[in-house]
């Protein structure tokens, strides 16, 4: 059954090539008929070539089907292997021009048979090609070294640490760009985590990526969430992820109440000392207070300050 399916696919490959050749011939003949082709002799030669190719294909159908099938399989395997690279696979396939590689290889095979392709392999076979390949590799190594120096300088970490962060960072940035998000902000958030926390424990690309993904979707600055996380981790002893989830909950509450999520987050971060007063309901209670404060254009600190003053006024009243 599987063998039959494979045979059918191979026959389809040959049919596609024959159809491609016929279509090209029709197009060229149409140009001649409409009087659009000035170099008629060239067009006629190409038509003759397409006819010879189709005759050759019919005489050698079995061998051609097998070879076209093999070329298609090779292309599909390469494309699938590259597409399977986590995060950046899809982008690499696009950037390297490897989409539908199986079909591209089949066309390449047919065009090589027709003699219509300038051999690409020649680029890598001669001494100049080998030198160019080495130069390309050396330049790539230099570019990677330079990028790790720049990253170390920007993040304030050692070059070794920057080198470890670089591949995941670049991969995440490319993945962000691919879905229309701003990948460059992952690096700035990573830097913000480093400067806010001091230690490198939480300064991971995964943390920066999670924050930026959420920040850009929610329309808040990544730095606000980093500051919020630092305060929440210090106050509650929670992990980085748990603090990020608290931020998400606060943003969702702010959105439901139709108030600015950035204002709620910054309010919570700056009124950290008041957290204990809402500890009955944990971070959620604190977020609810910040949301209520934002609704009236005030802050948690402002409202508590006003309440304190009111109490102070009452106590003064009692003493008079």
């Amino acid at each position, binding site marked *: 059954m599987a063998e039959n399916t494979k045979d059918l696919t191979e026959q389809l490959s040959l049919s596609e090539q024959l159809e491609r050749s016929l279509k*090209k011939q029709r*197009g*060229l003949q149409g*140009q001649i008929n409409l009087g659009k082709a*000035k*170099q008629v*002799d*060239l*067009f006629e*030669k*190409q038509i*003759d*070539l397409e006819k*010879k*190719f189709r*005759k*050759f294909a019919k*005489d*050698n159908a079995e*061998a*051609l089907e097998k*070879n076209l099938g093999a*070329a298609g399989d*090779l*292309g599909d395997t*390469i494309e699938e292997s590259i597409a399977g690279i986590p995060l950046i696979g899809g982008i690499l396939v696009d*950037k*390297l*021009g*490897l989409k539908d*590689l199986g079909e*591209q*290889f089949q066309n*390449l*095979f047919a*065009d*090589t*048979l*027709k*003699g*219509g*392709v300038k*051999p*690409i*392999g020649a*680029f*890598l076979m001669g001494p100049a090609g080998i030198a160019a*390949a080495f130069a*390309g590799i050396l*330049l*790539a190594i*230099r*570019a990677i070294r*330079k*990028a790790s120096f720049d990253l170390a300088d920007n993040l304030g970490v050692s070059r070794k640490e920057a080198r470890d962060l670089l591949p995941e960072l670049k991969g995440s940035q490319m993945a962000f760009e691919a879905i229309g998000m701003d990948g460059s902000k992952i690096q700035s958030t990573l830097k913000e985590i480093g400067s806010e926390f001091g230690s490198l424990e939480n300064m991971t690309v995964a943390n920066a990526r999670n924050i930026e993904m959420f920040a850009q979707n929610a329309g808040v600055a990544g730095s606000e969430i980093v500051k919020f996380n630092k305060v929440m981790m210090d106050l509650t002893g929670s992990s980085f992820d748990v603090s990020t989830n608290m931020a998400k909950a606060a943003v969702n509450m702010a959105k439901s109440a139709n108030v600015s999520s950035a204002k709620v987050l910054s309010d919570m971060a700056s009124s950290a000392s008041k957290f204990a007063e809402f500890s009955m309901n944990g971070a959620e209670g604190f977020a609810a207070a910040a949301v209520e404060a934002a609704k009236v254009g005030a802050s948690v600190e402002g409202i508590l300050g006003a309440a304190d003053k009111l109490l102070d006024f009452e106590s003064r009243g009692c003493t008079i």
Partner: protein
Amino acid sequence: MNKKYIKENKTLVREFLGALIRAVAQRKANKLVKDLRKQSPENAKAIDDMHKLASDIRDRIKQIEKTDPAKAKILKQKLGY
């Protein structure tokens, strides 16, 4: 040593990798055509005829390119070279 430098290298690496993958396929295709040629004298003649036609077309386009590069470009596109 600026961003432009890194960007230029990125393009170079990209082109190199793309060309490398195609070069692998091209070598395979060349070998397959060579094998088909060996199968029979008729095959060899048919392949030679096709290559002769392709070579004539390429030479003509090259000639045109010297006097009218724009027309040569259009011809390359239309004829698939």
